[in-house]
Every structure is written in structure tokens, then in C-alpha cells.
């Protein structure tokens, strides 16, 4: 986790998002520095997933700003958003692999859409390299339904990384996995971050994952950033709202 911290890649200011009468995010602020892993911690329903969906532009906030590489996401039209999204990777909690496509096609799909003139040999090379990174080259022609939960997560991670994003948003990357596979995924996240020099926001409930991956931990409580610090700082806190996560 020797990150190069020179510049903010994500700056969120006074973010408000609600559904009907229920306010989920209520003036949330966050800054993510280049090369750092920020873990967002919070109870179920606290708005963690809503937050990263606002960052990627899947949800429109009610007010506030989200600057990714100094460009305000909420103010963008669809084409500008597509452009901005090429720098942002998103790992879904459910993996969201296209189940009618083979693993090869799953990885080729974003490549062929983004780089229209890319040659077939180059596509094959990038797909193989992405799968090699997650030790799953042998699954190239398999269908997602033939893989285990941990393998699916690794393929999803490979697909997320294939466009070489500069920022990656992880939505509960270890949820539903056994401790050994969770540890493998955490190591992969760190390995790929080191290799590609990416910055990340990781949503997690899994305290082992938080401990192993976080440079900065942010506690999301009642729609706001309740506290921000390193894992060790938060672990030593006597505040009951913080302690409950570490007990």
C-alpha cells in the first residue's frame, strides 16, 4: 500500500440523495487521493451502494457535487458520462457477468465497444493478460454458470480492470465468500492496485477486508461522513457508533 498521494481523484461535496421522503445521503463529503484505497463502512441501508452509484452516474443526486478527475459527474450528459466512465471501473456485488456470454466474450465486450479499431490479436492478448492476472486463464471458453462464486468474483475483477481504469469502485467485494476466498480477493485487489496504480473506493462490511485493504476508513452514518481515519485510529476509538463495527 505504498501509494503515490499527490492529487485528489474524487472530491464529493455536500452530496444529498433521497428516495421519496427518505433521505439516504444528507450532505456527504469525501476526498479520495490518487493511489489510495478508501473503505466506506456503514450499516445495511446506510447508503453506501447509493453513494458509489452516484459516483458512477447510475443514480442522479438531488444536490451536491461529485468531481472525478475535476469533472462534475452530475452535470454531464450521457456521452460525457460514457467518456468519464472509461476511467472508472465498477465491481458489482453480484458480479454482473453477462450470463449468455462466455468468459472470453464477457471480457471482449467492453474492449470492442471502447476501442472500435482494436485488432483481434490485441483483444486476445488483453483478455488473456486480464485472466492471467486473476489466475483463471483456463476458464476462457467457459460460461459464467460453470464457475464458483470466488471464480466469478475474480473474472468480474478481471473485466473491471481490462479497460485500465484509474479509479475502481468495489461494491462489497468479499460478501458471500468464504474466508479463504475473501483473502484471495483482497490480495488480488491490492496486487492489481499496485500493478496498475489505481485509486479505489471499497464498500464493505467485512472487517478483515477493511483491515487488509484500507488506507483510509470512512464511517457513513445517517447520510454523513461520521468519521474518517486509518483502521488503527478507528479501532482504538471509544465512540460507541464506531466501536460496534470493531467488536
Amino acid at each position, binding site marked *: 500500500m505504498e501509494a503515490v498521494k499527490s492529487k485528489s481523484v474524487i472530491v464529493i461535496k455536500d452530496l444529498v440523495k433521497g428516495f421519496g421522503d427518505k433521505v439516504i445521503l444528507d450532505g456527504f463529503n469525501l476526498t479520495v487521493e490518487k493511489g489510495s484505497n478508501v473503505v466506506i463502512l456503514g450499516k445495511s441501508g446506510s447508503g453506501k451502494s447509493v453513494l458509489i452509484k452516484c459516483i458512477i452516474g447510475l443514480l442522479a443526486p438531488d444536490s451536491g457535487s461529485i468531481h472525478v478527475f475535476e469533472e462534475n459527474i452530475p452535470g454531464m450528459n450521457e456521452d460525457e458520462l460514457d467518456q468519464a466512465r472509461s476511467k472508472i471501473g465498477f465491481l458489482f456485488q453480484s458480479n454482473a457477468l*453477462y450470463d449468455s456470454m462466455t468468459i472470453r466474450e464477457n471480457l471482449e465486450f467492453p474492449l470492442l*465497444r*471502447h476501442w472500435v479499431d482494436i485488432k483481434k490479436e490485441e483483444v486476445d492478448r488483453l483478455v488473456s493478460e486480464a485472466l492471467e492476472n486473476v489466475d483463471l486463464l483456463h476458464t476462457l471458453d467457459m460460461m459464467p454458470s460453470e464457475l464458483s462464486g470466488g471464480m466469478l468474483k475474480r473474472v468480474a475483477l478481471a473485466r473491471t480492470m481490462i479497460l485500465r481504469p484509474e479509479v475502481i469502485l468495489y461494491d462489497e467485494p468479499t460478501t458471500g465468500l468464504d474466508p479463504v476466498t475473501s483473502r484471495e480477493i483482497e490480495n488480488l485487489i491490492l496486487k492489481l492496485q499496485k500493478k496498475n496504480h489505481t485509486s479505489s473506493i471499497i464498500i464493505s462490511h467485512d472487517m478483515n477486508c477493511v483491515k487488509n485493504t484500507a488506507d483510509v476508513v470512512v464511517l457513513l452514518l445517517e447520510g454523513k461522513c461520521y468519521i474518517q481515519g486509518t483502521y488503527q485510529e478507528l479501532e482504538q476509538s471509544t465512540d460507541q457508533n464506531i466501536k460496534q463495527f470493531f467488536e
Partner: protein
Amino acid sequence: MALIVSFKKFLDETGNIARFTGRFFSVGMKPRYENRELLNQCYNIGYLSFPLVALTAFIMGLVLTMQLRPSLVEYGVESQLPVMVGLAIVREIGPVITALIFAGKIGSSIGAELGSMKVTEQIDAMTVSGIKPYKYLVATRVLATTLMLPMLTILGDGISLFGAYLGVNIRSVTSIDLFFLQVFKSLDFSDVLPAIIKTLFFGFAVGIVGCYKGFNSSKGTQGVGVSANSAVVLSSVLIFIIDLLAVQITELLGLN
């Protein structure tokens, strides 16, 4: 009060479907075109539906002939059986029954497929990868249903007429040449063209409704089932409404 709420919900749903349909022309028809996916969908939607359409069309032609014969015999106009069956199949029964079978098979399949993609976040995954899911998933499917249903209807009509020919030959002997000569002599341009044109609209309705229901599927497997089911129900109702309008328009144009 409940009536007002239901009416408001109906208007909301109608507005949403209209907006969704509008996007087909504003987003779906702009380059870059997804030609490969369109061909893939034409194969899935058209070619793979052909056996079912062919079977039902054959049975429909046969049964219709067997049911009509007693009435025509009673009035002493049994010789008009090919004419009656031909007109009924080409003008009305062929297009409508084929469209209903199509709605059952394809409408439900599109609703369930896109619904399942929605609840497993595959549609969101496309969006975050910079792929326009409306263009890739919706526009291709709607175009495929619009183009394939008229073709299936023409093929279905032909098979249905063959079934009718066999039906005629159960009780009497008519050569295939004579049967089809009588059928085609009774048909003209104004019988065939409006019937084929309305199937373009039937196909469009089946595609749009299936995609709309799938795209707006609520969370969970139950939501996928509801999407598939409501896609079939709504597109079937729309087929009858479009048919009614088509009859009125052809009458107004003096084509009846």
C-alpha cells in the same frame, strides 16, 4: 379513491411506455448501429420461432376448414370453402393468431431475459462500461420483432393454407392447383397489404412492451416472472387494439 389511484397509475404507466417508445427513435435509430446483435436477435426471434408458428398455423388452417364446412354445406356453397378460408386466414386470422403466438413466445422471453439482466445488475454493468443498453438490448430486439413478425406471418399464412387444403380433402377431393387457384383468385392487393402492414405494428408492440417490462423489472425473481407475464398480457391486448384501429383505417381508406 382507489379508482383515482388506479387511473393515475394507468396514466403514469402509459406515459412511461410512450417515453420508452420515443427513445427508440431518438436513441435507438442513431449510429453506431448494432448490426451483429440485430442479426443475432433476428435469428433468435424469427428463425427459432418458425417451428411453433408453423405448427399452430397448420392446425389453425385445418381446424378452420373443418369447422366452416358444415355451415357452407348447409347453404349449398361448399365450393366456396377455399375462398372463405383463404380470405379469413390472409386478412385476419393469420396475422392475429401468429402475432398472439409470437407475443406468448417472444414477449415473455424478452421480458424475462431483460428482467433477469436488470435484477442481476447486468444492465447497470453495461452502462458503467460505457455501453448504451437501450441501443444494444432494446433497439435490436424491437427492430428484430418488427421485421420478423411480417415474415413469420407470410410463412404462417402459406402453411395455414396448406392445412386448409388438407382439411378440404378430408371430405372431398380437390387438387392443390385448383385449391390455390381459387384462394389467390379471391385475394387482391387490398387484402394482403394492410394485413402485412399491421403485423409490422404488432411486432413493434411486442418488442417494445417486452423490453419495457424487462427494463423496468423490480428486484428479485418474482419481479422477473411478473415482467414476463405482464409483457405477454399487455402485448396481447395491444395486438387487438392495433387490429381494431387497422380495420377502421382500412375502411376509411376504402380498402375493405
